């Protein structure tokens, strides 16, 4: 694992804070003084209780929301990826008039980059997502979990340098979820994108990540960043090893202590 120096990062967050105005005229603090440096090709999981500001954090990095204070800096880019940032949203947000395949091709269509290679990649993704028979179906013919998988595929088609994933597996059943996680790792291993992965499942966070960011309840602060020094490629069997159990326990304790502190 490379050690982080001051220049060796793709994203650097400096004292990010976020205050949302409320209808009653007050404010809600969603993020409080969040600082984090993410290295190139790193897989980071983010866990924390509901409402602690995980989505807010991704939105700020994506540029969809503007932080109240603090700074987001992006490191020097290698040009192997077409796009800087891509996001898998908490909801699938598919376009209902586009077939599954055309939803996957959203980003290439926007960039006028639909060629044979893109189509081949879309086919490959359909298989990986377990949707090979659904390429010509419309989103309203799909289950919630299937729609969410299309949303993931769409972001992967976009091929960003940094992939932000907001509870992408939230709508999936446990078995599909494990499989999707491992598939995601396989894809990630091909070109080692930088991934920020929000999840509510601690084992999932540990199984996928190099580091797990643990956040406190509102206002979201960084409780700790836990290193996951497990060998790659990861397998489902990893879950049963004592090292794995220890890390999960450590994160669970962090979350519990933060909970009882409030």
């Amino acid at each position: 694992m490379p050690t982080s120096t001051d220049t060796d990062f793709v994203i650097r967050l400096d004292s990010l804070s976020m205050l949302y105005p409320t209808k009653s005229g007050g404010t809600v603090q969603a993020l409080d003084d969040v600082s984090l440096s993410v290295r190139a090709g790193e897989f980071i999981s983010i866990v924390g209780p509901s409402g602690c500001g995980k989505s807010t954090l991704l939105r700020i990095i994506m540029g969809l929301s503007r932080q109240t204070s603090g700074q987001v800096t992006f490191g020097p880019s290698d040009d192997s990826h077409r796009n800087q940032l891509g996001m898998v949203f908490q909801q699938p947000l598919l376009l209902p008039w586009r077939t599954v395949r055309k939803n996957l091709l959203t980003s290439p269509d926007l960039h006028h980059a639909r060629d044979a290679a893109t189509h081949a990649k879309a086919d490959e993704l359909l298989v990986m997502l377990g949707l090979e028979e659904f390429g010509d179906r419309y989103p309203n013919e799909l289950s919630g979990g299937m729609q969410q998988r299309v949303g993931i595929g769409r972001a992967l088609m976009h091929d960003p340098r940094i992939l932000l994933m907001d509870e992408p597996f939230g709508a999936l059943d446990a078995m599909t979820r494990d499989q999707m996680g491992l598939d995601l790792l396989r894809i990630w291993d091909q070109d080692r994108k930088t991934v920020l992965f929000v999840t509510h499942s601690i084992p999932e966070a540990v199984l996928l990540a190099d580091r797990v960011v643990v956040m406190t309840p509102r206002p979201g602060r960084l409780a700790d960043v836990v290193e996951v020094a497990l060998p790659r490629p990861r397998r489902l069997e990893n879950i049963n090893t004592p090292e794995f159990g220890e890390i999960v326990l450590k994160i669970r304790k962090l979350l519990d202590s933060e909970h009882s502190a409030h």
Partner: protein
Amino acid sequence: MFTNTKRHAAGREVLAVPEGGTVPVEAPTSSATAVRRRRRRVPGIAHSVLVFLGLLVLWQAVVKMFDVSNILVPTPTAVADSLVDGFQDGTLLTHSIVTLKEILIGFGIAVGSALVSAVLITQFRTVERVLFPLLILTQTIPKVAMAPLLIVWFGIGISSKVLTVALIAFFPLLINAILGFRSAAHEQVEMLRSFGASRMQVMRHLQIPSALPHIFAGLEVAVILSVTGAVVAEFVGSSEGLGYLIQASNFTLDVARTFAVIVVLSAVGIALHAVVVRLGKWLVFWTATPTDTAGGI
């Protein structure tokens, strides 16, 4: 799961049959009642036809039995005769074509200008701030009241009729189109922008398709209003068209002919409405039926 389609989820059946120019606008029904209605639908239509035929027979019988003067109410058979005569000597057809032309041109102008205005209003804040209050204000004017003025300004030819039609059809189209262009969920816009879509691309890939169900709801209302508009404008002053024919036959106490013209007008209205509904179902294939957003105005 789809925030942007949620509002179209409730099934609504379009049973709106034009009836004296007013359009019943049905509120979206819950899916439960939609299911119940669908089950009853086929026998429902058969029943309607039977009841309709029954009423015709009753009408015929009452007129015959009580020897009602045919200057007041003609028998259905007399109306049918007049209808056949009218088409055979070409009167009904010639006048129908005139009115249809007025409707189609006026409706076309209304559609074009309403869509352009809606795009400008939803895309540019300043246009919205200047135009929207004015539009709301002018919307309160009963448009048919403008028909006499338009005749004064543009003569008794086709242009005054076309403009009356356009004026009447414009507002429901505009309001629905504005709602439509605004109907795309904010999250969807963010999703496209996150993939690097330009404002034009958001418009093309999201806002226009999301607007279609609403636009078609507006078209359904507007097409019926167009028929009314043309007839009213012809009443006010014209030398041809179905509205003129109604007045002329009324003048000569040929009530059977008046009824025949009303039948033709209804047929025109139903046919145009059906074309719009069909086109809507074909274009907006991803939702059950176009949603009514702003109803009859």
